[in-house]
C-alpha cells in the first residue's frame, strides 16, 4: 500500500524546490547566455535576499514588504557589482570566475558576521500550516511557492519575449556583436541583465526562508545546485533552466523521501550524465 500522503508531499516538495531552483537558475542562465559569465556570486544573491527578508520581516512583520525589499536590494547589489567591478574584467573568463567566487566568499562571511551562525527563519501567519483535502495533507506555504514560481516564470517569459529590453537580451545571447552594431548600448543591457538576475535570485532567497530557513552555507549549496540545473537545461537557455529546475527539483524531492542517502550525490550524477550524453544540455545549443 503506497502512502498517498507521502507521495503528494514528495511531489509538492519537489515542485516547490523546483520553483526556488528556477528563480536562482534562470537569472544565472540568462547572465551566462548574454554575458558569458559563469556567475558564482549568484548563490550569494540568493543568500543576501534571504537575510534581507529576515531583517525586514522582523521590522515590519509584513511578508510582501520583505519580499519586495529583498528583491530590490538584490537588484541594487547586482547593478553595483556589475558596474563597478565585473565590467572591468569583461572578456576574461578566468578573472570573471575568480571575481564572482570572491564575492561568494565575501558575502558568505559578511552574512556570518552580521547575522551569525544560527539559521534564521520566520513564519507568515496566513500562509503557513497545512490543509486537508480528501484526507491528503497539503502544506500551504509550499503550494504558495509553486504558485508564486509559476507566476514569476510566466512574467519573466513575457518580459523576455514581449518587451524591447527582453528581446535585446535574447538577441544578445544569439549574436552580441550584431546587437552592438545595431546601435544598442550593450554595456547598459549587461548591467540591467545582471541586476535582473540578482533580483530574481534575491526574490527566490526571500521566498525560501519560511520553508528552508536562511543559513550562511545556503549561498554555496544553492549555487552548486543551480549550476547543475543550468547545465541540465542548457547553459544560456531560459526555457532550459525552467525544465532543468523541474527535473532536478523533482528528483531532489523524490530522492529526499524515498532514497535519502542518494540526495547529495544525485545532483552531480544527473549533471555528469547530461554532460556526457549531450554536453549542451537539454535545450542548449549554438553557443
Amino acid at each position, binding site marked *: 500500500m503506497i502512502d498517498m500522503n507521502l507521495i503528494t508531499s514528495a511531489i509538492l516538495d519537489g515542485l516547490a524546490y523546483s520553483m526556488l531552483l528556477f528563480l536562482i537558475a534562470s537569472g544565472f542562465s540568462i547572465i551566462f547566455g548574454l554575458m558569458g559569465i559563469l556567475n558564482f556570486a549568484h548563490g550569494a544573491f540568493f543568500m543576501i535576499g534571504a537575510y534581507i527578508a529576515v531583517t525586514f520581516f522582523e521590522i515590519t512583520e509584513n511578508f510582501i514588504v520583505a519580499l519586495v525589499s529583498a528583491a530590490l536590494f538584490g537588484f541594487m547589489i547586482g547593478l553595483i557589482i556589475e558596474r563597478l567591478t565585473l565590467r572591468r574584467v569583461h572578456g576574461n573568463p578566468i578573472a570573471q570566475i575568480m571575481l564572482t567566487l*570572491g564575492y561568494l566568499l565575501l558575502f558568505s562571511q559578511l552574512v556570518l558576521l552580521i547575522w551569525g551562525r544560527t539559521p534564521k527563519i520566520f513564519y507568515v501567519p496566513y500562509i503557513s500550516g497545512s490543509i486537508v483535502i480528501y484526507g491528503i495533507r497539503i502544506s500551504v506555504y509550499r503550494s504558495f511557492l509553486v504558485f508564486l514560481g509559476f507566476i514569476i516564470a510566466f512574467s519573466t517569459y513575457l518580459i523576455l519575449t514581449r518587451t524591447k529590453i527582453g528581446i535585446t537580451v535574447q538577441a544578445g545571447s544569439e549574436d552580441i556583436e550584431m546587437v552592438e552594431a545595431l546601435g544598442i548600448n550593450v554595456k547598459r543591457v549587461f548591467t540591467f541583465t545582471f541586476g535582473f538576475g540578482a533580483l530574481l535570485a534575491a526574490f527566490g532567497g526571500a521566498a525560501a526562508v519560511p520553508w528552508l530557513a536562511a543559513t550562511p552555507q545556503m549561498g554555496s549549496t544553492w549555487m552548486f545546485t543551480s549550476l547543475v540545473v543550468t547545465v541540465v537545461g542548457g547553459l544560456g537557455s531560459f526555457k532550459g533552466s525552467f525544465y532543468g529546475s523541474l527535473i532536478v527539483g523533482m528528483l531532489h524531492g523524490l530522492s529526499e523521501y524515498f532514497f535519502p542517502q542518494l540526495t*547529495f550525490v544525485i545532483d552531480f*550524477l544527473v549533471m555528469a550524465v547530461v554532460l556526457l550524453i549531450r554536453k549542451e544540455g537539454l535545450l542548449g545549443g549554438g553557443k
Partner: protein
Amino acid sequence: MKTFIVRFIDVITRKYLLLIGLTLLFIFPIITPSPYYPMLLAEMFVWALLAMSYDLALGYTGLVSFGHAAPFGIGAYVAAILLRMDFSFLLCVLVAILSGALIGLVLGIFTFRVSGIYYALVTLAFAEMIFAIFNKWVEISGGETGLHVLRPEFLKMDVLLYVMIAFSFTLVLMLLLIMLRIMVSKNKATINKIAYFIFVIVTLATLAFCFPSKLKILLEGSIKEKTTTVVVMNTYYIIALIPLAICYLIAKRIVDSPVGRILVAIRENEERTKMLGYNVPVYKVVALIISSIFASLAGALYSPFVMIISPTNVLSSAIMVNVLLYCILGGLGTLVGPMLGAGIITLLANELTSIRGVGEYWMLFLGIFYIIVILFFPYGIVNTWKLRGASVKKNLKKYFTIIKTYGDKLI
C-alpha cells in the same frame, strides 16, 4: 655605493644566489629559535607544491580545472589510510602518487572531448561527487569528525639533522669560496673587501650562535617528550622541502621540454595546435595526469602534517578556491609565482588568525583580497615583475647614480 652593488651582483651570480638560498632553506630549522617557523614553512611547502601543480594545468595548458581538490584529497586519504595500516611512509607516498595519476586519468577520460566552460563544469561536478561520496562514506573517511593520521615513526628520529648539518657546512664552504674569489679579484678597493668580510662574518656568526643551542635542543629532543614536536617539525620540514625541490626541478624540465611548449601552444590557441597535427586531447590528459600526480603528492605530505583529515578539510571546493588565489596572486603561467602566492597567503593566514579581534575576520579579508587582486593585480607578482622589472631596475640604477653624484658633490 654603486660600485659596491655592481660588484656584488658580479660576484654573487644567479647560480651562487640560488645555491645559497637553497642551502639556507635546508638549514633553516637549525638557525631559528622556535619550532613555529619550520612548521609554518612546512605548511607553505605543501601548499606551494599544490599551487605549482595547479598552475601546470591552469597556467601552462589553460585547463580551467575545478576538480583539483580531488587528487589532493585522494592523495591525503590514501596516505592516511596506509599510514594507519602501518606501512612505511615511502610506500604510502608512492601509492598516493599512483592513485593521483589514476584520478587524473579518470578525470581526463571524463573530460576527453569537452573544452571551455564545460571543462570547468565537468571537473567541478567530478570533485563535488568525490567530496559527496567521501562525506557519506564514514567508514573510510571518518566523516565530519575526520580521520586520525598516525605520524610515521621516523619523523620522531633526528637522523635528518645530519642532512642539515651537512648542508650548513656546504653553506660555510660556499661563503668562504666566494670570499676567496673576492680576495683574489683585481679590484683592490679595500672598502669593498671590508664590506664582504662583514657580510660573511655576520652570516657565520649567526650560524655559530644559533647552531649549538639548537643542537642541544635537538639532541635532548629524542629523550624528552616535551621537545619531540621540535624534532618532528624539523624532520617534517625536510620531508616537505625535498619533494618540493625535486618536483620543481621536474616541473621546470617538463615546462622547458617540447611537450611543455606544446602545452603552452594549446593554451594559446587550441585550434591551431590541432591543425599543426598535435593530438590535443591526449596532451590535455597528460597535463592533467602530471598535475594530479604533484597534487596527490602534496596531499600525501599534508596528511601526516595536520594529523586529522576530513572531507571538508582536504576535498572541499574551498581548497580549489584557495589554490586559484595562490596562482593568480603569484602569476599564472610561471612555476615560481604560485609557490610565492601560496607562501604569502599562508603566512598572512597564520599571522592574522593568531591576532585576537582580527582572526575572526580572516575569511572576510580573504574575500576582499581576492577581489582586489583580480581587479588591480591581474598578472600576479612574477608576471608583473617580468613586465615592469626592467624599468624598476633601471630606476634603481638611476637612483644610485643620483646618490653617488650628490655624494661626490658633498665631498
